[in-house]
């Protein structure tokens, strides 16, 4: 015996072999981590560990000013084929082609019969945002197939592999109502979905919230609660849906009656700048936003109220007269002798009245009442002068955007005297709303200053934001004081008196309102050769305490070319219903209540 246990050498050999194997395994493990395949291997291993998923927070709800929902989310379903589980491609193809529009049997069959590979998960989307009704039909069919399999004790028919997942989709429960203000959300492409037009676009980031990508492990030991994902912020609009509905109905009726090509009606609160209603044609159902091109062919604006600049015509005389009164160059009693019915600009270009007639001696109220172009040209050129006139126009906000919180606001720059193309004729025509392009919202903003004692408020459609459980209300902002309160009240009185004297079609029984008609000629390439016009009316009331401004624009009416015959009656129709919806009593009752 040499002192070593039996089989000593064998033990040593086995031990050395084990050590060599362990070292080799260790070396290989280290080597693998530094080979070019390491990244690929790590990525593959992650596939087995779980899935990385982007969670999209629900898009914020949009309410009207009274809390009625204008836009929210509902459930749609994504239907797809998970190849791992497919056992009966024929049944899947039959079910999909029968239940879902746009799916053909051969196409679905080809997808469901795709060769399976062990090393990859293959999933094909068949249809997105399928309705709940369709899914219920699918579930019923699946249940029927299960029964049949049990009866026949076979593996077919089977919808195994046909899967559906719920997902939230945008819905507008009021249909076309306020669609021109709301815009739409193109949710079909989830990764690239965004708000388009209106508040959906203007407040897209707030409404969307912050999507988060989270890792969802397969290993139950590693599962953690998902992070709290805040839904997108909700918006409370200044829009009143009853007023909006009334405006859209009235506008449609007005277009049917007048033969107008399009139109806009805006109702605003002059004291806050809140837009209470904004109707614009064509009307559009954002629930079917993919039909956008059919409704808005070519360059048709989505919302004429903010997206179209046009020559407003005589409604603009309100601005010219307000400037004259505020600057002190004229008073309501200042007279002008319209002896010939023509005003010569720089002794070269004639300006005529709307009826080419001469109206004799008129005070400023008469000039506004009869809408005399020659008188307003005289006021702009001889009394105000170019410098003062354009200063006032800029003070009223013309030539720049109003900054309303809606997407795609148009703006047409002012042609000012320092521009080489400017002529004195521009000053004359601008004074009565020709040769200058404005948007309806610019007009409403400017006129609101007159209805609000000279304070011009920032127009806006969002009244409050609800985010992370807290509400942030928008504070009305004064953006300028273009004229004094005295001048504002004076022109309001002039225009209220003018309507009464004219027995205008805009008068509203029981309510004293101020306003002005407008008939704007539409320029062509050859000048003002067309007989087509833009008819407008801007009015506000009650005259002693204005609570609303209403702007009506009917484009190219066929029944008449005059604003007094087309837009003024529409204004009356709107105000008659508006006072009910705004709970404004007739003047005599309101004044009596105020006295008590």
């Amino acid at each position: 015996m040499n002192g070593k246990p039996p089989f000593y050498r064998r033990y040593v050999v086995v031990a050395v072999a084990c050590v060599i194997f362990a070292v080799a395994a260790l070396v290989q493990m280290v080597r693998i981590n530094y080979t070019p395949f390491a990244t690929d291997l790590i990525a593959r291993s992650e596939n087995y560990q779980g899935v990385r998923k982007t969670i999209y927070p629900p898009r914020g709800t949009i309410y009207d000013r009274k809390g009625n929902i204008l836009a929210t989310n509902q459930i749609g379903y994504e239907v797809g084929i998970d190849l791992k589980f497919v056992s009966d491609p024929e049944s899947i193809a039959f079910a999909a082609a029968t239940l879902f529009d746009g799916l053909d049997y051969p196409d679905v069959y080809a997808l469901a019969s795709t060769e399976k590979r062990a090393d990859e998960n293959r999933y094909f989307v068949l249809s997105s945002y399928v309705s709940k009704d369709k899914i219920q039909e699918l579930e019923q069919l699946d249940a029927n197939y299960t029964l049949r399999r049990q009866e026949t004790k076979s593996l077919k028919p089977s919808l195994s592999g046909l899967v559906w997942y719920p997902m939230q989709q945008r819905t507008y429960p009021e249909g076309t109502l306020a669609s021109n203000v709301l815009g739409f959300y193109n949710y079909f492409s989830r990764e690239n979905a965004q708000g388009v037009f209106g508040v959906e676009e203007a407040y897209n980031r707030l409404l969307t919230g912050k999507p988060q990508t989270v890792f969802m492990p397969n290993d139950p030991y590693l599962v953690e609660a998902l992070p709290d994902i805040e839904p997108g912020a909700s918006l409370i609009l200044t829009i009143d849906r009853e007023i909006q509905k009334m405006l859209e109905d009235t506008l449609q009726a007005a277009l049917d009656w007048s033969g107008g090509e399009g139109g806009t009606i805006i109702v605003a609160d002059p004291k806050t700048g809140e837009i209470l209603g904004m109707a614009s044609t064509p009307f559009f159902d954002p629930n079917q936003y993919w039909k956008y091109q059919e409704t808005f062919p070519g360059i048709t604006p989505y919302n004429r109220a903010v997206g179209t600049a046009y020559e407003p015509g005589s409604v603009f005389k309100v601005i010219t007269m307000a400037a004259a009164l505020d600057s002190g160059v004229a008073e309501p009693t200042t007279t002008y002798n319209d002896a010939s019915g023509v005003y010569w600009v720089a002794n070269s270009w004639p300006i005529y009245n709307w009826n080419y007639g001469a109206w004799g001696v008129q005070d400023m109220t008469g000039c506004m009442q009869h809408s005399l172009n020659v008188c307003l040209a005289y006021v702009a050129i001889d009394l105000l002068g170019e410098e003062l006139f354009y200063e006032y126009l800029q003070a009223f906000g013309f030539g720049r955007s109003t900054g309303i919180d809606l997407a795609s606001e148009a703006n047409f720059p002012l042609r000012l005297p320092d521009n080489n193309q400017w002529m004195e004729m521009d000053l004359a025509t601008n004074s009565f709303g020709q040769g200058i392009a404005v948007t309806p919202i610019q007009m409403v903003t400017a006129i609101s200053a007159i209805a609000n004692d000279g304070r011009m408020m920032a127009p806006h459609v969002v009244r409050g934001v609800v985010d992370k459980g807290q509400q942030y209300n928008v504070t009305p902002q004064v953006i300028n004081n273009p004229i004094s309160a005295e001048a504002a009240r004076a022109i309001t009185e002039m225009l209220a008196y003018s309507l009464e004297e004219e027995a205008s079609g805009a008068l509203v029984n029981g309510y004293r309102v101020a306003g002005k008609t407008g008939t704007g000629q539409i320029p062509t390439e050859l000048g003002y050769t067309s007989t087509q016009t833009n008819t407008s009316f801007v009015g506000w009331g009650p005259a002693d305490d204005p609570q609303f401004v209403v702007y009506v624009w009917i484009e190219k009416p066929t029944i008449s070319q005059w604003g007094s015959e087309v837009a003024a009656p529409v204004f009356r129709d709107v105000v008659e219903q508006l006072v009910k919806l705004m709970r404004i009593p007739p003047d005599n009752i309101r004044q009596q209540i105020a006295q008590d």
Partner: protein
Amino acid sequence: MKNQILQAYKQAPWRIQLQWIGLFLLGLVLIASITGVYLSISAQAATSGRRIQYLESQISTINNEIAELTAELAAAKSVDSMQSRAQSLGFIPLNPHNAIYLEVPGYNPHADLVLAPPRVNIISESPTVLSSYRTSLWEWLVSNIWQTPTGDAPTEGVQ
């Protein structure tokens, strides 16, 4: 003496075996205990993980149902739907000249809609957690043993 003890062990070798067996069993029990605890905790963790997944799924389902019901309610309360229901119930549009106007003190028809509490910047000065839960042992010793208590007993949170 030392030799006597060694002699005694040599005379009873089963004692050494018993000692090894005891040690082995002790190690086995220890390992079994640790394994049992580990398995128990692992099983609970796995169950909790699956429970979390289930609850997340439930939350998602409930959120979807809430969204669906909200959309259905909004459609049922849409202006067209309400108008047609009002007409079917015999309501007619108001004529403002036939209306009776009442002044209701305190009623503001133009009041802001409140969907959530307004934003508050003021940080609450009254603590929500009792001081006894926020005081460390060291602070308690300092204030109650080494320094003379200042008199009044703390009444915070006591009604």
